[in-house]
């Protein structure tokens, strides 16, 4: 494997030195482009109290292309589908090479605090979110309890 670019080394160092509150990202020892990530559910959201595991991979042409990120913990959210894939503009069309792992993870945390059912990835969840918000939030809380608090 080619030498790790300076950019990734610096980002990794900074993540360890000044961690973002509520977010934890650690690279695998055998693959420094692969990170185990955990994000705390934001306060006041249905995900509060849960710790959500994600995997993050920096592709070869990172930072020209965005990192690949996926939820490993089951989550009930209109912009996250059954496979844990995330619908977020900065991970797709609005990616900028000036963005970093930490900024992306913060965006994901913010997405947990502000679901956007108008731009859904999981249509069934989004539909329920729009028609019966209370019920949807209750389900999200329940899923958080069952899957993200063990």
């Amino acid at each position, binding site marked *: 494997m080619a030498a790790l670019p300076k*950019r990734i080394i*610096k*980002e990794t160092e900074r993540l360890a030195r000044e961690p973002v509150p509520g977010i934890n990202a650690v690279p695998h020892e055998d693959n420094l482009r692969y990170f185990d990530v955990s994000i705390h559910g934001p306060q006041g959201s249905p995900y509060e109290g849960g710790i959500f595991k994600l995997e993050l991979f920096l592709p070869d042409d990172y930072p*020209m292309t965005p990192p690949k990120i996926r939820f490993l913990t089951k989550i009930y959210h209109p912009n996250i589908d059954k496979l844990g894939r995330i619908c977020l503009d900065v991970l797709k069309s609005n990616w*900028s*090479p*000036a*963005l970093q792992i930490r*900024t992306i993870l913060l965006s994901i945390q913010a997405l947990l605090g502000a679901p956007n059912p108008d731009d859904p990835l999981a249509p069934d969840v989004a539909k329920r979110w729009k028609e019966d918000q209370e019920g949807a939030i209750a389900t999200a809380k329940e899923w958080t309890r069952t899957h993200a608090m063990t």
Partner: protein
Amino acid sequence: MKRNAQLTGFASAIRISSLSDEFKHPSTIDTIPPQSKKRKAAEATVASDTLSAQRSSKRIASAAAVKEGPPTPLTTGSPMDSDDEFMSGMSSDEDMLQESDNDDGSADDFGFDEPEPDLGYSQKGAVEKQEKRKFDINYKVYHPEDIQAQQDDLIDEVNMILDIRKEDAAILLRHFRWNKERLIEDYMDRSKKVLEDAGLGPSMTGPPKLEVIPGFMCDICCEDEKGLQSFAMKCGHRYCINCYNQYLGQKIKEEGEAARIQCPADGCKRIMDAKSLDLLVGADLQTRYHELLTRTYVEDKDQMKWCPAPDCTNAIECGIKKKDLLRVVPTVACDCKHRFCFGCILADHQPAPCELVKMWLKKCADDSETANWISANTKECPRCNSTIEKNGGCNHMTCRKCKHEFCWMCMGLWSEHGTSWYNCNRFEEKSGSDARDAQAKSRVSLERYLHYYNRYANHEQSAKLDKDIYHKTEKKMIQLQSASGMSWIEVQYLNSASQALQTCRQTLKWTYAFAYYLGKVNLTAMFEDNQKDLEMAVEALSEMFEKPVQELADSKLKVEIMDKTSYCNKRRVILLADTADNLANEVWTWHPKDLFDYFKS
């Protein structure tokens, strides 16, 4: 068993069409001028009759149609008679009658002026000479250098009027989708906002340049070595040249982006201009970038579209609006000879309007009908039941086993087809009593669909099988030259014939899709008559065209083929003019009646 395999197709012979235009049969040159004068005079009277503009334009269209080619008194007798009756029936117009009389009287000396099938569409001098036909539309073909020149002119103009850099003028123009007037107006009113919206910040001084700044670290790659060259646009977001290079490569090569490449900084809307880009990337990316820019120019303009033919780099400009598409079928012809519909980019589908074509194609692609048409692709000989796959052009089938001659369309005896009661193209609705029975009804609707589909698919298949006809024609022409001692120019009539066949089959194909959606009224009967005449002529020509070279060398057959060619072209023009006219005046009745209502609303 199959038709003469030699004569399979008419689909791809367009490329040599210019030849026939330049090298008409010698006798044409001598005899045409008095003729056309006469015709011009007739048209003048027509045009001056201004009872209603619409009516007169209709006449001109039919007059032009008549002018294009004479009837063919030299060929078979009986179909012609019916045709004359038909033509007088088609238009109640006296001028029209006169015109046809003229033609009949003088057809002998006029008989060899065979037009190329797409005469009205080619951008040669022919267009000016010809009266505009009802189904012709205005359009212009642009070559890549024209497109570039157009952009440069606009950029220069804005550059002078607004006194801004050319790169910025280009970005502004792209932002305004090349609407120069709106750009200048808006810029005069509030230049700051316009610049900001277009991704051009306020300060704009000095040419872009690479800089080496001590202590600089690139935020993208985190490199900070000494002497690292960096670049920033006016927004001040500074990155190293390597990152810029990679970033722009990603945008241009992977994403095909050009006109709206933003600054790499998160959320910065500043647009990369051409001059800065040239500074940052190598020659190959620059070339690609400028190609993409040209592409967006055409794509940005509502009135411009790329020619869809493979490897064609021309664009076409045409003023047809989307809402006109129910009334006009805007067929255009690129300089590369590809003819297509400006409305939907599909290959020429006159006379059927785009929406109808869309519905028809969807219906044909629909699985529910698949089973039905699969069974329609092969047929059995009506006499000996051998299974037959048709692989040739014409519908006159001769069973190889039992020598039975029949019509591929209706499976009836071919001997019954040579006369004017050839009725094979028309679907006869079952009587009302049958329709009451639900089962019968569904069968009728299925039969109805299959009727039209079979005929549609038949012409389409003929056209497909005929893809290589160009080479075959060419080969034939060379053979003919050596067999008969005719000169190259003298054998061009075969080329014209193959083109005519191909164009007419394309039209015929779509007449069946069109007919499927037509309600059954008097107009429809007229349309079907037109269709029948064209189809008969095409089949007759197709058969002549398939004859072996030795027979083709016969001058009598040559004259017949030339007559038939011009007759086919004329019938096609008449059919299209009539349909286009009724379409423009919205007098067709559709089946079902509300077919296009959703489109109008």
